[in-house]
């Protein structure tokens, strides 16, 4: 990858250690993806915030890079481990270390959104703009729906892009790579957000390319469905984009029918029941909170129910009375965090959870070692509410 003279100086440390580390990361990615050059980006979204996932070494890295590092573009931030304004019963050490991480990001100039759905709470750049999004559901959604351009970035590549304002020009950043060479042909009636999530998980796992085509799906304009699809794709593979295709577009295809759905569900659904219901991986936005209210019809949950949403969404929903209504239904709100990998839902507290999220199901199973009853929102409400 060719660097300009200024970029070269940055890499050699003439502008400080943070910039040098950032360029080192970008050069490695440039080599890995055969990029010819770096291109400017306008927005970065950084993951690697939760102390549960990045640990002491991640904290030390952030403290070090924030000594002389500053972001050059608008930069949003993924969820952390808990709600800043509603401190949970966690060890003081955890809370202090989590706050040290947030202070390091603040010093870097990152906006403390603590959200994995930044596309619902940030003002977005113009369509066709190069951005750098680390959160996998956000990257897939931005490429596939918002007409923004990003690779499926890592926590560190997005941070490096935030600090330099640049990213290697490769893969999905090049127009010709945004046309799928293979497509998933859906043969099923997709009735729920879970169905979309399962299709996404299957697509991500099956398609080893950066962009996949998907045929024969509808109703993806509903927020929960499109977020489930994007999160499913982002969880199971390295694919960073999907494009809706006509059935007769000639290209290699993979069918997704009842057998494929069953096998995907069997992989993720490990229990018939659970101790707590969780919604929000990715976090819920206003549209989903409204849908929850509509479906509940004044019924109450018979098991503890936790909803994860960004603080900004929580405040907006509170203003219109939505939060109060949902709290009366037994919902406990947690902002700033997400179902996945929060220390609030671990083996210490629970053996099993109930959720409609394939992403939560995957990480609860593999990382937190919990059993998961995976079912649709409607099924959860039918089974676990009463008047």
């Amino acid at each position, binding site marked *: 990858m060719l660097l300009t003279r200024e970029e070269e100086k940055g890499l050699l440390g003439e502008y400080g250690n943070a910039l040098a*580390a950032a360029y*080192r*990361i970008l*050069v*490695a*990615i440039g*080599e*890995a*993806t055969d990029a010819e050059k770096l291109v400017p980006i306008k927005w970065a979204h950084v*993951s*690697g915030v*939760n102390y549960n*996932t*990045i*640990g*002491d*070494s*991640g904290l*030390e*890295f952030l403290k070090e890079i924030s000594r002389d590092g500053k972001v050059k573009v608008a930069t949003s931030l993924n969820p952390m481990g808990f709600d800043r304004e509603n401190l949970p019963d966690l060890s003081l050490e955890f809370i202090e270390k989590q706050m040290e991480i947030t202070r390091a990001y603040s010093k870097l100039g990152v906006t403390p959104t603590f959200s994995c759905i930044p596309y619902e709470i940030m003002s977005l750049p113009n369509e066709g703009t190069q951005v750098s999004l*680390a*959160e*996998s559901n956000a*990257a897939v959604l931005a490429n596939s729906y918002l007409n923004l351009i990003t*690779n*499926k*970035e*890592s*926590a*560190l*590549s*997005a941070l*490096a892009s935030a600090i330099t304002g640049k990213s290697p020009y490769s893969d999905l950043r090049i127009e010709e790579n945004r046309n799928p060479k293979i497509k998933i042909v859906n043969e099923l009636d997709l009735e729920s957000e879970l169905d979309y999530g399962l299709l996404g998980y299957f697509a*991500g796992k099956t398609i*080893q390319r950066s962009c996949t085509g998907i045929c024969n799906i509808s109703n993806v304009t509903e927020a929960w469905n499109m977020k489930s699809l994007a999160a499913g794709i*982002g*969880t*199971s*593979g*390295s694919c960073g984009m999907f494009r809706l295709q006509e059935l007769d577009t000639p290209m290699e295809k993979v069918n997704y029918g009842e057998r494929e759905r069953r096998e995907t569900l069997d992989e993720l659904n490990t229990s018939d029941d659970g101790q707590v219901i969780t919604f929000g991986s990715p976090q819920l936005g206003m549209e989903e909170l409204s849908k929850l209210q509509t479906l509940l019809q004044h019924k109450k949950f018979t098991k503890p129910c936790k909803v994860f949403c960004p603080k900004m969404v929580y405040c907006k929903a509170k203003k219109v009375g939505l939060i109060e209504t949902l709290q009366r239904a037994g919902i406990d709100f947690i902002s700033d965090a997400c179902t996945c*990998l929060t220390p609030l839902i671990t083996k210490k507290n629970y053996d099993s959870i109930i959720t409609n999220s394939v992403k939560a199901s*995957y*990480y609860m199973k*593999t*990382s937190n070692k919990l059993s998961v009853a995976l079912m649709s929102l409607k099924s959860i409400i039918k089974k676990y509410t009463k008047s």
Partner: protein
Amino acid sequence: MREFDLKIGCKKIVNGKARGKVLLFQKPLNFLGMVNTNTGEITNIEDRTETYQLRNRILVFPNSIGSSVGAYTIFSLKSNNVSPRGIICTNKVDITTASGCAISNIPLAFINKENYRKFIEAIEDHFNSNEIEILLDTEREIISVD
């Protein structure tokens, strides 16, 4: 210095030299979901129940998948002294693995299909391919197989 029998070409992604026993996986790995950063153990591989140890190995696998935070997992493994000594990707070098190795100074290389085939041929004669020692020299872009 010990001599190796076979030399296979590779592409340098992160500079360095590492010697160790091979840990070979045929399917992609999700570092965040599968790896314990305190112990270097890796589980949930290819629907198998076994646990494998990353520490001091040369990890050979197609590419990483899933969470963007996997890059920090690689860094944590290194900080906790339980990381692989080197990594070789056989399908593509994804951004998570490249960025994680870049800040951890773990030598990282890519081998193309042709060289991967040679690599597999070289190690498949052994009873247990995970016991074979190799030398990864990304500066010279060579993998040497014992």
